[in-house]
């Protein structure tokens, strides 16, 4: 069983985004965090002080741990930001 089967989902075909140079599939409507997590990427940022890896924590936009830089612009919370085809995602 997987979550898609559980709810009887048949998502539209995935598109590609790029994380730190690596292509990652994303389903239409999926958040960047979910796409990364779904691809087995669990850490996508390094902290300023201790240089520790971080990824998803609260999952609902509250903790700001999952921030990424999308297409070179300012930092965004990966869990709140819907992936768009061709997005270039870099660690914040």
């Amino acid at each position, binding site marked *: 069983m997987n979550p898609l089967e559980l709810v009887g989902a048949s998502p539209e075909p995935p598109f590609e985004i790029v994380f730190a140079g690596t292509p990652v599939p994303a389903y239409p409507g999926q958040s960047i965090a979910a796409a990364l997590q779904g691809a087995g990427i669990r850490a996508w940022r390094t902290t*300023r002080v201790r240089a520790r890896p971080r990824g998803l924590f609260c999952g609902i936009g509250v903790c700001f741990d999952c921030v990424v830089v999308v297409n070179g*612009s*300012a*930092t965004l919370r990966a869990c709140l930001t819907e992936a768009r085809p061709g997005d270039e995602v870099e660690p914040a």
Partner: protein
Amino acid sequence: MPDVVVIGSGVVGAACAYYAARAGLTVTVVDRGPVAGGTTGAGEGNILVSDKGPGAELDLATLSARLWRDLAAEVAGGAERPFGDLVEYEPKGGLVVAETPGILNALTGLADRQRVHGVTAVAVPPEDLRAYEPHLAGGLAGGVHYPQDAQVQPMLAAAHLIRLSGARTRTGAEVTGLLRGAGGRVTGVRTARGDIPAGAVVNAAGTWAGEIAAFAGLTLPVLPRRGFILVTEPVPPLIRHKVYTAAYVAGVASDDAGLETSAVVEGTKAGTVLIGASRERVGFDRTVSLPVLARLAAQATALFPRLADVRVIRTYCGFRPYCPDHLPVIGADRRTPGLFHACGHEGAGIGLAPATGRLIAAAIGGAEPPVDPAPFLPGRFAA
């Protein structure tokens, strides 16, 4: 019984405790809240000589800047690191910029007069501004660099000064009255948690110092002047100095009760950018004013266009202890023996704290004052 009880654990009270202890006096510090929870806790930590015109306050400021530098280099109290590290002392220097040739004229004129009083002020032509601050907006008329300007983390500074003083600290103890002895002499404080007799009482209650003076039947015209600060998300180092527009100097000296804002922008060791400054006389109203925040944001982005896409994550306000003549109140209150005031520093309390502490310690101990104390004496308000 301590020789001195200091009311207020803000940076001014802390410096009074520190220098009194260095002069051999025993000290107790009382505060109704936690350590440095009032105006000090809402400050940027400015140690500025640049924003003061020639006169008594500038002399106090240059002495104080020197004392901060000396303090910063000390390794005291069994610490592994110098005091400056503990309190995030940064001798970053100030850069004052002028938008127009007319403003620049006034600014360089001020700098000329400040130099006479021991201030180092370096004129910066417009083409050199970006060598100091690479992200400054174009089109500025020029500026003046003040290498003596510095910054500390104000709460840490206050807390560590009190720790080093060895003073007994009674937080959460609101002063409810003054103890009086023969001839009306102040002999200690009454607090919600008991009486504390002492040889001398220092009123370092900041914006609330007038309430303490009133316990002795005295009038001390210290009023709140509200200021907001914006704090951004952490960013890679963008701004090296404390950078502000020449309008700030006018704002500091003004008596206007209405809203005044001017751009004051600086980076911190934590990576955040602090943005001020606003001045309003609205009592102790803490209601956030979004139009004031918008003006601060507009002025900061005009000065540093790169900040436009940086996000503000929080804001806070504080109440500067403002005296009508813009001078702090420092020294013995001749109307009431045993009572000393160290308050009314407006927005300069962090910078002026060490010199204030030295003046108070000298006044209590009968020692030679480090600068002429006359302009700061409380007697100037006696009717």
